[in-house]
């Protein structure tokens, strides 16, 4: 008999008033009993609607059935057939708009907690797996991957499994992309990313850090060095600013800078060499995951008041639902339907306040969301000493400006075939945020996977 409870098993978490002062992981993970109990909520539907909601088509009912009977090794095997970063995706995927949205149990009550179960299995595997994955037999061919984010790591892993000698070129000093510089420790512990990367290395993938492709090497030189195909997974790392007065004041950060200082450069540790402003009152502009992460980091650094300033309403907030809930529990103050107009500073150019204007929602725009319209004369001041801008990022122009014949669109995204990742340059494939603009981990992984398959076919055809 399935477990007919209308609610998911709750995720054990650190108490809000405690966790908003530390950087330890918020969600603690299911116990075996909780996981098995939750797995019993799955009806094992024949038509598997959830699988259709998963960008990498994990056989969700199958892995959940294995949890139900306590066969976790088999559950992991099923997961890893489709995803190379289950411990990451279980934590950061927007399940409520993907697999769980399609879950039949969600029609009446809450869907099965697919994400939490995925995380449970992946964590179990990390704790219990004894041997690193075996290195596959080499096929004697070389492929290059630019960028060590989820897209690049997935592509590299899949190619390595097919026997390719894969080298990843990463601009920063650490592999992981947004997983290490953007998403904070309390949501995705860096040890997890490191272990996933260690697994790749065990497969024989070589990672060269400190290599900014376009500067120290060009894509053309990679081909000259004998790489037969190149994957671009360089992400969308260029921060957008609002272009309002006062954005260059001291105390205004892009979310990328703020989060990079905290995560990659470890400014959350008391003895860190990296400076960061410990502000008293902080306004974060934006409503996505990035904004939530920045706000929750600011709180953890000791801010008394942290605001999320977003120009639409709660309904339109693009962040994962769980992150919004967690942020609210932690005391983040949501100032919805507000838009910043300028930032004001003192003589030393330190931020003193941010002026905002109230908004209301008008007719739906091209994106289908109702367009925010400013209410004239409704300006007011928010007293803050730090402003963090989290209104989106674009792809970095470095690669397109140094690679002849690489077609990009008007937003600077690389033009690539949706199914194969093939670009306008022969042998060059691309995927992830570099192609789509800022999106999600799972979509980046899916693109890396599809490209690996297409690159293998391309290289085989070329040899034939």
């Amino acid at each position: 008999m399935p477990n007919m409870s209308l609610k998911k098993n709750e995720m054990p978490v650190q108490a809000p008033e405690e966790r908003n002062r530390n950087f330890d992981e918020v969600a603690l993970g299911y116990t075996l009993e909780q996981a098995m109990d939750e797995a019993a909520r799955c009806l094992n539907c024949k038509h598997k609607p959830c699988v259709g909601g998963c960008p990498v088509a994990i056989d969700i009912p199958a892995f959940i059935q294995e949890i139900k009977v306590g066969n976790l090794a088999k559950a992991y095997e099923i997961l890893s057939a489709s995803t190379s970063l289950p411990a990451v995706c279980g934590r950061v995927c927007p399940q409520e708009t993907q697999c769980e949205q399609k879950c039949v149990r969600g029609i009446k009550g809450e869907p099965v907690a697919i994400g939490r179960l995925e995380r449970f299995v992946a964590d179990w595997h990390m704790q219990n797996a004894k041997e690193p994955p075996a290195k596959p037999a080499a096929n004697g061919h070389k492929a290059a991957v630019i960028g060590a984010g989820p897209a690049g790591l997935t592509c590299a892993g899949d190619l390595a499994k097919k026997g390719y000698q894969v080298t990843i070129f990463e601009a920063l000093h650490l592999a992981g992309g947004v997983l290490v510089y953007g998403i904070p420790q309390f949501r995705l512990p860096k040890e997890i990313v490191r272990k996933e990367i260690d697994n790749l290395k065990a497969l024989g993938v070589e990672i060269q850090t400190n290599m900014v492709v376009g500067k120290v090497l060009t894509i053309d030189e990679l081909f000259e060095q004998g790489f037969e195909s190149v994957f671009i997974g360089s992400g969308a790392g260029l921060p957008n600013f609002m272009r309002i007065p006062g954005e260059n004041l001291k105390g205004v950060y892009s979310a990328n800078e703020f989060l990079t200082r905290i995560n990659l450069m470890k400014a959350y540790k008391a003895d860190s060499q990296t400076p960061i402003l410990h502000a008293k009152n902080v306004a974060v502009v934006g409503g996505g995951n990035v904004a939530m992460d920045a706000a929750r980091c600011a709180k953890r650094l000791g801010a008394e008041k942290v605001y999320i300033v977003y120009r639409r309403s709660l309904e339109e907030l693009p962040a994962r639902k769980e992150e919004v809930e967690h942020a609210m529990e932690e005391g983040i103050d949501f100032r919805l339907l507000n838009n910043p107009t300028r930032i004001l500073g003192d003589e030393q150019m330190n931020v003193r306040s941010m002026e905002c204007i109230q908004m209301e929602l008008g007719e739906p725009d091209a994106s289908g969301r109702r367009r925010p319209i400013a209410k004239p004369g409704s300006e007011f001041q928010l007293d803050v000493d730090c402003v963090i801008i989290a209104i989106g990022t674009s792809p970095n122009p470095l690669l397109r400006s140094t690679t002849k014949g690489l077609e990009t669109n008007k937003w600077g995204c690389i033009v690539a075939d949706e199914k194969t990742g093939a670009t306008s340059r022969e042998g060059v494939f691309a995927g992830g945020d570099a192609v789509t603009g800022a999106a999600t981990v799972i979509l980046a992984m899916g693109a890396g996977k599809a490209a690996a398959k297409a690159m293998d076919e391309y290289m085989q055809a070329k040899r034939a």
Partner: protein
Amino acid sequence: MYTILKKQALNPTVTLMEIDAPPIAKKAEPGQFIILRVDEDGERIPLTIADFDRQRGTVTIIFQIVGATTERLNHLNQGDCLQDFVGPLGVPSHTEGLQKVCVIGGGVGSAIAYPIAKKLHQNGCQVHAIVGFRNKDLVILEEEFRSVSQRFLLMSDDGTAGEKGLVTDALKKLLDAGEQYDEVIAIGPLVMMKFVCKLTKEYGVKTVVSMNPIMIDGTGMCGGCRLSVGGQTKFACVDGPDFDGHLVDFDEAIQRAAMYKAFEQQRREETCKLFEGV
């Protein structure tokens, strides 16, 4: 991995290091910079490439000991390795087609100005060099500058080396004497560059400055290095480091550079104590 092949104190607070980094040496051009980390958990700091040798695969950096990181860096010796060394970053200095240029270096900025003067000289451009230091103990690269310039003026604040005065005094003298330059290239403390630009604006001489703001990644990813140039926001690491000095908002840059002063002071003192302890 990024071995220090040579270390040389140029003066009590300025050190030269030659680093083994063949891929970077192969691509480096004057005006570009590298970012390094001294050790795991270290900060990322940008330093302009002072010289490079493509054959030997080396990149030379010259740094002033101003904070915790440069203090730590200065405690490494020949044979030691750096944790990270990435580059060449930024846009190379524009040197093509110039006929006559006045290159100005202030303090450790002279180390950045020198490779540009050298490149101009190699291109057959007439180079006038003005370099300024606080006193004679701090003078660096004097011989090097002399060897690549038609005119060389050494200035010091206290008159213990060359002439007493500021680099702007020397520049004014040259301009008043009727010297015509295609361009003035000024590299040094922000205040110095600000006043050079103020002067050359009066004389209508195009001036290029090299900006070195606070950076993290050096690839355009954080925006921490942003400056106002002609009313537009630019990222020094990818759009620069060279900019038209007459368009740069120096007052803003000076404020932004001081953002973490207290923190840096504290970390430096801690680091000094640490090294005294051993």
